[in-house]
């Protein structure tokens, strides 16, 4: 195998694969990237849960395949002088990198040991295309709410479901839940729903960053495959029963309050400084035309801030984990007011952007 490629383009392509490379290093081959030179060059990495394959143009002198330590290879290529770099497979799986006057020989592993990239077998259960900007936004608005807790595997990913033209993403960790629905052309998302793992979505989000165009998504067996112009990503689905999320969304809220997003976000950040322990609990106290955000703890002190709001309901005080509130405020648009719907101090609160019915966020109160 031998090919030459522009260093800049090569660096970018390698960067995309870095996140997937297995860190714990249980199988040495998974710490490597696979380089396959044919008509063009493809770079693949996997941790067996998520597979990623990037194609890029290269001058291929001799077809073939090689693997080399992903991180070392990336570090090296990044530091090479601008211009073309030539990669050649030597005996004993050594990979030679030449660029200008530098010549580096890297230890490699047999390419045939590298796990095969799951091929589309054409028997997908469902398939649709989606605008990558919408896809990125849907991930942004749900992935943060996903559980990081290893003991709740079924909550460790975003639930994807659809009905007709509507595609829905749901993320929850059992304390709060984010739900976004977007209408997409020609969608046939699986009604039953699937759970996309956090890591796969994180990688996918990275792939679509700054891109436009469409992504085609196909779901089959226990994997989902996402194709962009020059990259393909396959992730294994999480096997498990996603909770019945619809039952937790209150049908009717009793009290509604609208407030400028930035005001609320910065008030929360200030007040939660004195909030206690890891819970970062804050109280939202509603009264006519006014919301008081407060927190206190015996160890740090107390803080409160009054905000003007449009509210004419009963007086009500509810406690929340302030991080659950700031998390969602961070993904809501700056331009619209935030609407908070409440029932009482033990029922879920609902947060959304005023006038936007595509997104809602449900958060459980905290007893402080």
């Amino acid at each position: 195998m031998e090919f030459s490629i522009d260093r800049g383009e090569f660096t970018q392509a390698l960067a995309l694969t870095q996140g997937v490379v297995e860190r714990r290093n249980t199988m040495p081959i998974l710490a490597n990237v696979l380089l396959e030179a044919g008509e063009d060059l493809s770079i693949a990495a996997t941790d067996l849960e998520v597979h990623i394959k990037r194609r890029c143009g290269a001058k291929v002198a001799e077809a073939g395949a090689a693997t080399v330590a992903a991180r070392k290879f990336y570090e090296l290529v990044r530091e090479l002088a601008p211009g073309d770099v030539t990669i050649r497979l030597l005996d004993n799986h050594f990979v030679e990198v030449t660029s200008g006057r530098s010549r580096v020989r890297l230890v490699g592993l047999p390419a045939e040991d590298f796990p095969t990239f799951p091929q589309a077998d054409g028997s997908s259960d469902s398939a649709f295309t989606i605008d990558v900007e919408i896809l990125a936004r849907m991930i942004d608005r749900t992935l943060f709410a996903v559980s990081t807790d290893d003991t709740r595997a079924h909550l460790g990913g975003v639930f994807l479901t659809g009905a007709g033209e509507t595609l829905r993403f749901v993320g929850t960790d059992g304390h709060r839940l984010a739900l976004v629905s977007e209408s997409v052309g020609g969608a046939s998302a699986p009604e039953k729903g699937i759970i996309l793992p956090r890591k796969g979505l994180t990688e996918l989000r990275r792939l679509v960053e700054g891109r436009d165009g469409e992504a085609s998504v196909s779901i089959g067996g226990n994997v989902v495959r996402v194709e962009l112009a020059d990259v393909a990503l396959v992730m294994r689905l999480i096997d498990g029963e996603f909770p019945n999320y619809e039952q937790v969304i209150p049908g009717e809220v009793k009290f509604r309050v609208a407030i400028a997003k930035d005001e609320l976000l910065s008030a929360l950040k200030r007040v939660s400084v004195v909030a206690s322990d890891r819970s970062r609990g804050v109280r939202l106290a509603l009264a006519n035309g006014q919301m008081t955000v407060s927190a206190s703890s015996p160890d740090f002190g107390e803080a409160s801030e009054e905000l003007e709001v449009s509210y004419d309901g009963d007086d009500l005080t509810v406690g929340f984990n302030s991080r659950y509130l700031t998390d969602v405020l961070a993904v809501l648009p700056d331009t619209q007011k935030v609407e908070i719907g409440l029932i009482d101090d033990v029922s879920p609160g609902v947060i959304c952007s005023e006038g936007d019915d595509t997104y809602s966020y449900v958060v459980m109160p905290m007893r402080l």
Partner: protein
Amino acid sequence: MARIRQLPPHIVNKIAAGEVIERPASVVKELVENALDAGAKRIDVTVEEGGATRIRVQDDGHGMARDDLALAFRSHATSKLRDADDLFHIATMGFRGEALASIGSISRTTLRTREPEEETGYELVHETGEDGEVKVAAVHRGTTIDVQNLFMNVPVRRRFLKSPSVELGHVTDVMTRFAIAYPEIGFSLLHGKRRVLELDAARDMRERIGSLYGEALAKELIRVDSELDTTRLAGWIAPPHHDRPRQDRIFVFLNGRHIKDRTLIHAIHEGYRGLLMTRRHPTVFLTVEIDPQEVDVNVHPTKIEVRFRDSKPLHQLVRRSLRDALQSAELAPRVTAPSQGESTSGEAPKRDTASNEKDDVRDAIRDYLGSASRKSAVRDTGADRSLWAPTPAKDDVSREERATPSSVSPTGGRQASEPESETPRYAGPERESSERPASPSDRPISTSPSRGVAEPDAGFERVGGSFDGSTEDPEESADPSRPVQLHQTYILRETDDGFALTDQHALHERILYHRIHDRVRSGTVISQRLLIPETIDLTPGEIERLLAHQNELHRIGFEIRRQGEDGIAVHAIPDVLRKLPTRELVDQVVSWIGRDEEDQGGEKDFIDAFIEMAACKAAIKAGDPLEVEQMKDLLRQGDALPTSSSCPHGRPTTVRFTIADLEKWFRRIV
């Protein structure tokens, strides 16, 4: 068909003997009790072959009159009880009148006695229930009872006797109990020709414990002495590090009688709660003096079990007294230098005549050691700094941000502060050199004590010391109170009389334990409601158990409701334990409540168990690197606690070493 007949007295006695006399040790117990009731000042016991062939108990008490001898072996003949009312204020050890009759019915027993004021003594031989002739004999003042061939006519019992060494062990246990309960009385125990115990009258219980278990224990004993109404509790308890794998050093004497009472033993463990590891037992010597009317000792023939009219106040008294005593004592185990053998004392004179040259060497070594320790301190913290340089810098920013909220821009996204926080990362070396000449007071004060280490998660990142790790500053490294972290697990610090090592996890756990405890008491435990109530299948018994404690569960942050026939729904959980699977959490609570029920007495122990678990989960772990300021803060908080010498699991938090120990190790003194 067999006719019903009244059993002849000798059979009755044999049956009673089966209850009272299980083994030679029982004989010793009964006879020593008799001796004590006779006002003896010295009791000598001799046994042969573990007591199987011979048990002799000799006292110097008031003896018996000739006329009484005829009744001595009759059952229910006693000098100690006259009517049934006496039973309820029993002040003597024996009272049932069964002991001698029982012993006499199953052995050949010789009784020799002389009253102090009489000149002649008497001897009576009694064999398997039959009295012999009362003879005049020359005998010591007091009573000697010589029991031979125990169980001679009860072959079954005889066969079931264990080896002489086991039986002797039981006899020794019995004697030890008497010895502790009656320190003012001299005791001896001979096995054949071998002297097992030789205890002269002691001044007090502590002296007696010293002769039984060694001065090392006696020296560390903590005095307990308290009263409640007519009940008096006194005795000595050992610090937790004298713990035992069995309950073999828990001695409770009720009105002078050794008893094993579950309530009291539970109360003792409660007193030590949090100071002992699980399945370890304390060393405790307690006497309880209680109005005889408040207790029924006539529950069991061997009187080891008793029944209290109301055990609750006593349970409380014991628990509180022990806890108070332990809290007032300084509990950190001290490490003592290895005691020096004879050889070193031989060296001593040599050192006295040491030449100046030798002193010079010593000084040189001291200098070397001094500089070496400085050097290593420099190296350690130097490494820390380079590793942690970004963190303190970031913390500075975040602290400012928190301290002066108005400085945060209204658009203040997460990114806002980032660029600033990045810069010091690369400015490390320059900043360090520019800071070096600054006097220590110019250095930023890194943290207020109130914003403590003990804040569970973010706490440590937040307190993160500023650049006060500028180790090149000679004043800094000479700071005597400056703690050093060893292997990211232990904190070493200088104390007034030496130095101390602290386990960072154990201490932090102890601090959090108190903090969470306060929260539970003040009802401010933070509870997170669940989006989807978690349904958990349980047995009907477990469900009842949980529901019966709804209020307490609510206090520690749970909200639980019945869900169908065989399950509960968890609606809210304590926020500190949110990372744990709910199922595991509930199972844990159920088992704690179950344990409480078995133990009785100890109300609401599961709350304590909950606090322990929460503290453990939230505490910093071994292996977490700490900044100097964090360590100081941690130690400061530890010092402020009422009991900080052990973590809630009973592991010690701090071990102290004295300068004298050091000097011994290095043979500066011997």
